[in-house]
């Protein structure tokens, strides 16, 4: 009997120790501030630098180096002011003459891409329809006041000015510029979509092509 009792004690202590260690180790998926452990360490870290990685050699610690002064861009020079700045070639710094016509040929697909980009970059503040009722605007509670694209003044804006607003921002970064996020084609596609949004409330029957009117039986007389 003595022997059995002793075994019981041993048994229960083993079970207890097991459970204790299990609770201390934790379960799968438990939150932890410790980085993942990789049991096999062969070539996990390498001497080359990945994107946005650290390099202690430089003072700022960036492996990516900022462009030095006088860096010349690869590819064709961007001299076409109409396309890249939305300005007529004869406009000056203080007297910009904005282009009135989009200097790219855009298809329906481009406008759909413009919509996709508008939804990503513009809707947080300007809202899906452009009424400046985006969720960020609502939450900020008056700290930011994005313009309503259906305003009289916005309707009168030439496309070049809208392009410039997207590219460089407006009013000393009141609206940030999206030069680094959007390519030139994307920016013009967004401009086209903004124009399309404005048309949704201003279009008349005259704006509809004749063949579509004929197809639906619409006429100008209604």
């Amino acid at each position, binding site marked *: 009997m003595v022997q059995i009792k002793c075994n019981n004690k041993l048994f229960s202590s083993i079970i207890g120790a097991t459970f204790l260690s299990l609770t201390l180790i934790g379960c799968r998926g438990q939150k932890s*501030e410790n980085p*993942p452990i990789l049991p096999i360490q062969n070539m996990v870290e390498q001497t*080359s630098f990945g994107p946005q990685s650290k390099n202690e050699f430089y003072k700022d610690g*960036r492996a990516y180096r900022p462009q030095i002064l006088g860096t010349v861009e690869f590819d064709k020079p961007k001299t076409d002011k109409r396309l890249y700045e939305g300005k007529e070639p004869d406009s000056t710094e203080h007297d910009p003459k904005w282009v009135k016509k989009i200097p790219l040929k855009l298809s329906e697909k481009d406008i759909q891409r413009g919509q996709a980009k508008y939804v990503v970059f513009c809707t947080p503040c300007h809202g899906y329809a452009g009424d400046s009722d985006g*969720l960020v605007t609502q939450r900020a509670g008056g700290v930011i006041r994005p313009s309503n694209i259906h305003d009289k003044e916005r309707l009168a804006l030439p496309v070049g000015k809208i392009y410039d607003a997207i590219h460089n921002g407006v009013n000393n*970064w009141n609206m940030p510029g999206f030069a680094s*996020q959007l390519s030139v084609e994307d920016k013009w596609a967004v401009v086209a979509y903004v124009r399309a949004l404005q048309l949704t409330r201003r279009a008349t029957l005259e704006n509809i092509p004749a063949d579509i009117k004929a197809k639906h039986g619409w006429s100008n007389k209604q």
Partner: protein
Amino acid sequence: MEPIFPKWTNRIPLYAGIGVSLLLIAIVTGIWYYFSPKFLAVGYEPVQPIAFSHQLHAGQMGMDCSYCHAGVEKGSFSPIPAADTCMGCHNKVKKDSPRLKVLRDSFENKTPIPWVRVHSLPRYSHFDHSAHLTAGVGCVSCHGRIDKMNTVSMVSPLSMGWCLDCHRNPLPNIRPQSELKNMIYDPHAEGYIPLNDPDYKDKLIQGPQACGACHY
């Protein structure tokens, strides 16, 4: 004659048989459970230098992933946004908040914010974000419900077995190109069939399983 071994020694083989097999089971189970990246990697939630909340920005305010992580559709990696992107709003919104001091310092001194990387692969394997997005794998499939996380944590083990699970049978994780960044969309619940989608119709919906696809 007095026996050399006492009688209880007759049971040693029995005890040893049970004990050794239990021990073996415990060791195998322990290694299976605890040595897996599902235990070692999932749940990694580092403290970030700025208490940025994806739950607020992506969840409550519905900002698209690529507003900040712009270029993920075109590049191999999903970029951490520049301080410029943050300051686009935060030069007005909460502009004096002490919680954003690190951001303002970074913006003024042109030094990087020391974000702690959450998802990182060993350097011998390569992952391309744009290829996966083009193939129709959305953000949520690997990163989980980021729009519910105050602090980002890892929900996927990022192990090779986990990668191959999907590369061998990708169909359940394919979603329409318009829903890639939608956190709530569930292709299964919507009855979405990738093979009928004109975007994927002429493509081979099959992840590569060759070693050289990732280890190059």
